[in-house]
């Protein structure tokens, strides 16, 4: 369903994604893990047509995101890591906007928007402007919006960032269900290793732009002789903190919480 071959992205002379290859079969849940600044989001941006690769090949549902942009776009849905809501619109309007852009028929759209807003517990607040929402509420809304249309492939870039454990659990059970019922392929990133361990069938670990390990969580634990995916992750990527990136991303997380304009 997703194929990536020798994909590289350079920003000037900095290589953010360095010759990576991976493949995700139809209907699988795939976790793309790595320390801050490893190149996860950059890879997703290329897969989702937002960024042109420097070199390499990609296929989404058989379509090339560089040349068959429209077909590729029809194949996926995405929940971005960074904020992506229109804060001057209400929660309902954001959902509706998405449904219309993705041509979800009106009656299905109405029903699904209500169901999803109830699911993320924002139905009571559906007519409030998003700029008055808390960080967690915005995140829940973004996830709900990503599920308004049912794509073949769902990209989730740190979907559970900033959410409490109850909500995380709740959302993952919904996504796992979609994966089962509709055979939706799920490609996600997270920094919560136990989350990846629980939901992903296959995992790839990327560090400094290069893929350093691939396999099932079980295999990775075996390979590194560790008992948790977290330890396996640390064994594979080292304990050094990615300083500059940590600074930047912390800033972003703060920003996300404090954004009350």
């Amino acid at each position, binding site marked *: 369903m997703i194929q990536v071959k020798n994909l590289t992205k350079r920003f000037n002379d900095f290589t953010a994604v360095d010759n990576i290859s991976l493949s995700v079969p139809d209907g699988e849940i795939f976790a793309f893990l790595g320390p801050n600044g490893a190149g996860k989001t950059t890879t997703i*941006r290329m897969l*989702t*047509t*937002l*960024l*042109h690769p420097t070199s390499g090949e990609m296929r989404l549902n058989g379509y090339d995101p560089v040349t068959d942009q*429209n077909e590729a*776009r*029809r194949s*996926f849905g*995405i929940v*971005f890591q*960074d*904020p*992506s*809501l*229109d*804060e*001057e*619109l209400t929660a309902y*309007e954001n959902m*509706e*906007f*998405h449904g*219309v*852009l*993705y*041509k979800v028929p009106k009656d299905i759209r109405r029903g699904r928007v209500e169901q999803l807003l109830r699911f993320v517990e924002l139905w009571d607040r559906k007519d409030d*402007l998003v700029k008055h929402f808390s960080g967690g509420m915005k995140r829940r809304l973004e996830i709900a919006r990503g599920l308004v249309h049912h794509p073949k492939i769902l990209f989730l870039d740190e979907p559970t960032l900033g959410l409490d454990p109850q909500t995380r659990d709740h959302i993952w059970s919904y996504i796992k269900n979609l994966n089962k019922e509709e055979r939706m392929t799920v490609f996600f990133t997270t920094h919560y290793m136990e989350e990846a361990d629980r939901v992903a069938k296959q995992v790839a670990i990327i560090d400094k732009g290069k893929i350093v390990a691939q396999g099932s969580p079980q295999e990775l634990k075996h390979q590194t002789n560790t008992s948790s995916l977290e330890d396996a992750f640390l064994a594979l990527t080292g304990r050094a903190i990615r300083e500059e990136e940590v600074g930047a991303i912390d800033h972003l997380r703060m920003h996300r919480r404090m954004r009350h304009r």
Partner: protein
Amino acid sequence: MSTIYILWLRQLKRYFRSKTRIIGSLGQPLLFLLALGFGFGPIFQRAGGGNYIQFLTPGIIAMSILFTALFSGIEIIWDRQFGFLKETLVAPVSRLQIMIGRTLGGATVASLQGVIVLLLSLLVGFRPVSMALLPMAFLFTVLIALLFTALGTTIASLLEDMQGFQLIMNFLVMPIFFLSGALFPLQGLPKGLIAVASVNPLSYGVDGLRGTLANGVHFGLTMDFLVLGVIVAILLVVGGYLFSKIQV
């Protein structure tokens, strides 16, 4: 079709929800009308120019359309900064539709703005010369609005962030406004200024509005219409192309 409609609707909602933006964008033209209109009125009259309010109003209407339209176009930079642009760009809809929806939305808002300023100007004593010409005045309003929304989109497609914004205000918008004949007649100006005014699209908009709302044209209404129409067409194509190349 539904794509264009929902994008159009979004622009309108954002505009009507932003009360400060509405008040701000109506306050400025009103101030210009009052201060300049009454301030220069007597001199203009003595110099044989006639009623200055009559002369000035079409220029001020053009100004408010210019500002609103350009800002609507440039809103893409905000969308980029607040992340919403990504949401639109990953959707399986053609870039041209996105561009058209946004441009129509921005142009609708700017046209409304022009109509409101016209109504306000009635309070200050402006009187349109002929009711029969009002539909044509509206046509010019829409053309100016389309032109500068598309120009805003084109510029915004080239800018990464708000850094360049002040530069654009000072070196593009202000000269466009001041060198358009909005405030003074082009007749009898130094050759250099006339040359600049003739390559300034807003001059044709001001001329068209003045010719249909008040008296006296410089270039002629047909010329105004053709120039504006051709530039709108070009900008839509160029803007659409640049917009389709945006990476986020």
